[in-house]
């Protein structure tokens, strides 16, 4: 048991930040992302014997966090109008990172997930496909379209911001 604790502690300390960044890129709200990732790690420890054997345990955490978020949004969408709720344009001087984050938030959810899993967890196409339960070709399509949108955003930033 102490060996499992040590394993999980290591997984938690090294996995927290990339998982949080990936979820943040998808959901947009830092507070929501922190809550969802914390809940996902709770579930990871509850099922650690299964999760530790998972081919991509960090991807399991991100997927679990996003699923938790989906149910959170389903509850919240009955109470609040969603249009543009989590989309905040970067203010002047907020820089490239804020611009990219906003660009990510404007992508369709699936494209956001694919980009986030590739960027922050460095997963290959097949692993992303397995995690999201979609075809590898669909992952490639989402990745291509997402990258195209990011490239456009980077170009615009360069032209406007110098």
């Amino acid at each position, binding site marked *: 048991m102490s060996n499992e604790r040590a394993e*999980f502690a290591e997984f938690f300390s090294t996995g927290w930040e990339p998982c949080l960044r990936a979820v943040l890129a998808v959901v947009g709200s830092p507070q929501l992302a922190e809550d969802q990732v914390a809940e996902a*790690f709770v579930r990871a420890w509850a099922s650690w014997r299964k999760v530790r054997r998972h081919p991509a345990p960090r991807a399991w955490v991100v997927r679990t966090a996003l699923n938790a978020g989906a149910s959170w949004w389903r509850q919240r969408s009955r109470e609040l109008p969603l249009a543009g709720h989590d989309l905040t344009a970067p203010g002047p001087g907020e820089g490239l990172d804020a611009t990219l984050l906003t660009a990510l938030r404007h992508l369709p959810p699936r494209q956001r997930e694919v980009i986030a899993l590739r960027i922050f967890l460095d997963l290959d196409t097949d692993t992303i496909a397995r995690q999201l339960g979609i075809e590898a070709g669909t992952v490639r399509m989402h990745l291509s379209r997402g990258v195209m949108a990011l490239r456009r955003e980077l170009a615009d930033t360069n032209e406007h911001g110098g």
Partner: protein
Amino acid sequence: MNAHHDMSDTDVLSTARDSLSAMPVAGPPDLETIMARGRARRHRQRLIPAMAGTLAVAAGAALAVTMLAPAGHRAAPQAAPQAGHQPAARLTAWTVTKLRSGDISVTIRELKDPAGLQSALRSDGVPASVTFAGQLNPACRSYPNGSIAWPPLPPASLLRQVFPKPYGTIPPAAHQSRGWSRAPGTGGTPPATPASGQTVIVIAPSALPGNAGVQIATTHDAHWIGPVRVVYASQHCTGS
């Protein structure tokens, strides 16, 4: 055209990763808190299948009892007011029926044979005190959160759990003012019948604490089948 237009997909992703990774994010929460919540969740996960199995066995047993046993306890028909099992050819003063859920439904049409009703409930495993004579059994003591406060307040949680109907279906304010079982009659004489012709009380034995029972009574001053309340089980009050 600028340099970004010429970037490869890999370069775009690398630039995005480098830029977004530089953004400050919150550090991890306390590991022990995460693990404690995970342990609690694991315990719940283990309990749920065990409880589901127990419930399935209980449901099967209840179904078997329902199929093998008479439909329920009935008071004697109005023309022959002795307690006992009778065919429902005529309406009886009260009927006790065990539901598939394990709850017990009591339908009262006439305020007769309280001892028979009390006995029927006890034989179904519900420690009970029933009096229709206008007086509460003085040996009964109310269980905490098991009765309605005065002035009328929403029924306490235990009361709602043990008596899911009518307390679960009628707005709390109506309990006292309009009365789910207000009976006709004035003065100090207990009413002969419930106001609407019959009253249905559902009892959830599973919600009863181990040392508790139920009390069903009419009172001189209020003319209700009431109060129904949760009481401490004792030999002199509920028979056990």
